[in-house]
C-alpha cells in the first residue's frame, strides 16, 4: 500500500467518522439531560436530509440557480425543521413518559423511527427509490498518486469540526450550556436553582435533532444519494459509538464515532478475509471494548446516579 492510498483511506475514514460522531453526539446529549435513549434519532437524520432535498427541488422550481443560496436555504430548513421535530418529540412523546420505565421511551421512539422512515418512503414522491442529492460544493479535486483529495470533502470535514467546536463552546462557555450541564448533573438541584427544566430539555432536543439534520445534509452532499433507510443504519452505529465512547460524554461520542469508522475501514482494508465481514469485525471489537470498559472509554464525570 502506498502513501496515496493510505491517505485516501484516512480521508474516507475521517468523513465516515465525522458523520457517526455527529449522530452519536445527539444520543449522548439526550441521555445527558433525561437519561433516555431516543432511538428515532437516525430517522430524524433521514427526514432532515429529505427536507433539504425538498427545499432544493422547490427552490429550483421557482428558478433559483445559485449554489450558495441553495446550500444556505437547505441548511436553514433542515436545521430549523429538525429542531422543531426534536422539540415535538421531546414534548409529546418523551416527557410524558418521564415516570414510566426507561424501556417505554426506548420503545416509543423506536416505533416513531419506523413511522418517520415509512412516512418518508410513502409520502415523499417515489420515496422508495434512492434519490439523487445535488452536489452543491465545489467538486475540484487534486490527484496525488492514488489519493483523490476533493475540496468538497475538506469543506465538509471543516464544517463538521466547526459544528462540534460550536457545540463545545455552547455547552461550556454559555449560560444555556451551564443550565444544560446543571440539568444533566442533577435535575432537582437545577430546578431549585431556578433552571426552567422543561425549556432546557426542549432546547437540548432541538440542538441534538438539528445536529442530526446537519449530518443528514452532509450525508447527502457526501454521497450525492439519499434513501429512506439511511438513518436506520446510521442510528445504530451512532448509538453504538455513543455507548462505546461513554454515554453522556460529548468527547466520548466523538471518539466512539471515529473509532467505529476506523474499525470499519480497517475491517475492509487490513483483514485478509472478504470485506463482507467488516461490520462483524467492527461490532465484535465494539463488544470487546464494552466488556473492557462497561461505562465507556470516557466515563461520565458524575457517576453516582447509577
Amino acid at each position, binding site marked *: *500500500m*502506498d502513501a496515496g*492510498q493510505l491517505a*485516501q*483511506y484516512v480521508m*474516507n*475514514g475521517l*468523513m*465516515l467518522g465525522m458523520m457517526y460522531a455527529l449522530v452519536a453526539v445527539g444520543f449522548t446529549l439526550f441521555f445527558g439531560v433525561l437519561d433516555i435513549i431516543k432511538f428515532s434519532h437516525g430517522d430524524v437524520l433521514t427526514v432532515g436530509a429529505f427536507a433539504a432535498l425538498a427545499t432544493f427541488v422547490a427552490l429550483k422550481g421557482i428558478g433559483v440557480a445559485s449554489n450558495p443560496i441553495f446550500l444556505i436555504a437547505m441548511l436553514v430548513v433542515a436545521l430549523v425543521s429538525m429542531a422543531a421535530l426534536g422539540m415535538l418529540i421531546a414534548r409529546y412523546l418523551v416527557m410524558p413518559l418521564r415516570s414510566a420505565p426507561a424501556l417505554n421511551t426506548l420503545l416509543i421512539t423506536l416505533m416513531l423511527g419506523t413511522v418517520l422512515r415509512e412516512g418518508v418512503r410513502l409520502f415523499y414522491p*417515489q420515496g422508495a*427509490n*434512492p*434519490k*439523487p442529492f445535488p452536489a452543491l460544493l465545489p467538486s475540484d*479535486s487534486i*490527484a496525488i498518486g*492514488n489519493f*483523490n483529495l*476533493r475540496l468538497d470533502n475538506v469543506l465538509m470535514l471543516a464544517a463538521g469540526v466547526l459544528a462540534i467546536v460550536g457545540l463545545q463552546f455552547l455547552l461550556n462557555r454559555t449560560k444555556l450550556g451551564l443550565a444544560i450541564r446543571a440539568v444533566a448533573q442533577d435535575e432537582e438541584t437545577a430546578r431549585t436553582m431556578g433552571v426552567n427544566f422543561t425549556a432546557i430539555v426542549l432546547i437540548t432536543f432541538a440542538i441534538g435533532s438539528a445536529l442530526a439534520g446537519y449530518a443528514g445534509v452532509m450525508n447527502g452532499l457526501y*454521497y*450525492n*444519494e439519499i*434513501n429512506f*433507510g*439511511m438513518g*436506520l*443504519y*446510521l442510528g445504530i452505529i451512532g448509538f453504538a459509538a455513543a455507548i462505546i465512547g461513554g454515554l453522556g460524554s460529548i468527547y466520548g461520542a466523538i471518539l466512539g464515532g471515529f473509532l467505529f469508522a476506523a474499525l*470499519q*475501514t480497517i475491517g*475492509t*482494508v487490513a483483514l485478509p478475509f*472478504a*470485506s*463482507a465481514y*467488516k*461490520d462483524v469485525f467492527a461490532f465484535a471489537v465494539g463488544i470487546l471494548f464494552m466488556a473492557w470498559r462497561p461505562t465507556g472509554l470516557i466515563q461520565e464525570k458524575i457517576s453516582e446516579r447509577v
Partner: protein
Amino acid sequence: MLAKTKIAVALAALAFAGFTGGAAAKDKVKVGFIGPITGGVSANGLGGRNSADLAVKLRNADPKAKYEYELVVLDDECKPNVAVQVATKMAADKEIIGAATHYCSSTAIATVDVYHKFGLPVIVWGAVLPDITYRNKYAEVHRVNGTMINQNDANAELIYKAGFRNAAVIHDTTDYGKGHNEYFTKAFTKLGGKILGTFGVTADQQDFTAELTKIKALNPEVVYFGGLTPIGVRIRSQMDKLGIKAVFDGTSGIVSDAFIQGLGPLAEGSLAFREGAPTEKLPGGKFFMEKYNAQKYDNPPEAYGAFAFAAMDMILNSIEKVGPDRKKVIADLANVKDRDSIVGKITFDDHGQNTVAVITKYVVQDGKFVEWDESEYASGKRKLPGQK
C-alpha cells in the same frame, strides 16, 4: 377461483370440440399449468396462464392434432408452501401428462422434488434461479427460459469482446448476489479474463469508499456489480467521487428506472443484462401477439407469456409425437435439439436447461436502457470508459 378457471377452460375446450365437428373421435388428454394467478405477481401469472391456454386452443383448432387437450390450471400464489401442495395435486393426477410450471424461483425450486417423485414431466416457463435445473439431475424438469448463468455468460462475452481483460467484483451477500458473483467469475475467467478482487457487501450498506479505494488501487478496467438498484446507485456514484474510471457492469438487478433517476447523467455507459426479451423481438413474437390479441384475454401476456406458450407448445408436440404417456414424453424431452419455437431454437442440455436462452443486453444511453446492439456504443459512435 380455481374451479371457475377449470370450468372456463373446459367449456372453451368443449366449444372448440363442437366447432371442429368430427372431433368426438379424438381422445382427451389433460395437460397442466401452474403459476401465480393471485397475489403480487399475478399479472405475470395470468399472462402466462393465458399464453399456455392459447397454445392449447390453437392445438385443439388444428384438424391434424391427434388428441383433444384440456388445460388444468392451478395457482401457486408465488408461495413455496402453496406450490408444493398444488404441484402434488397435479402430479398425483395420472391423467395429466405434462405441465408448464412456475414463474417464481422460490416455488419452482420447492417443487422439483415433487415432480421427480411422481414422474411428471414439466417445463419451467419463467423462474430464473439456476438451481432449479442444475441442483439435481431430474429427467422430469426442464426450462425454456434462461438463467443467471446465461445472463453472466452474455455479460462476460460482451465485455471481453469490447476489449476488457480484467474486472473487480462487488456483490451483495444474498443468494442473488452470490450467484451472480459465482457465474460471472466462472464465465469471465473461462474466456481468459482476470478477476482482480472480489468484495462482498451487505444489501443495505451505505458507504463503499473503503472497498472502492482498494479497487482503485487494483486498477480494473471493469467494475462488475451483482446486486440490486439501491446499492448499485451508491457504488456507481462513489466510484465517481474516488475518480475510478472503470466500466460499471451490472446485472438484471439494476434494470429499472430508479437506477437512472438515482444517478442522473452518471448512469451513462452502465451495462446491464436480463433474461428474456421484449415479446415483439422474439422470432415468433409477431405471430404470438396476433393470436394472443385475437383471443381478447383480459390481461397482456407480460414478459414471460411467450415462454409459457413455448413450454406448453413443446409439451403438446411431444404428446402428439409419442402419445399420452408420461414416461415416453420424458424420454422425448431428453432429446431436444434445435427445436423451433416462438422464442427461437430450443436445445436442452443434460439437466433439461435450454442452452440457447434469450438474453437482452442493455447499456444506458442518454438516460435510457437501450438494447446494446442498437446503441451507439455497439456501432462505435460512443465508447465505454477505457475502451480502445
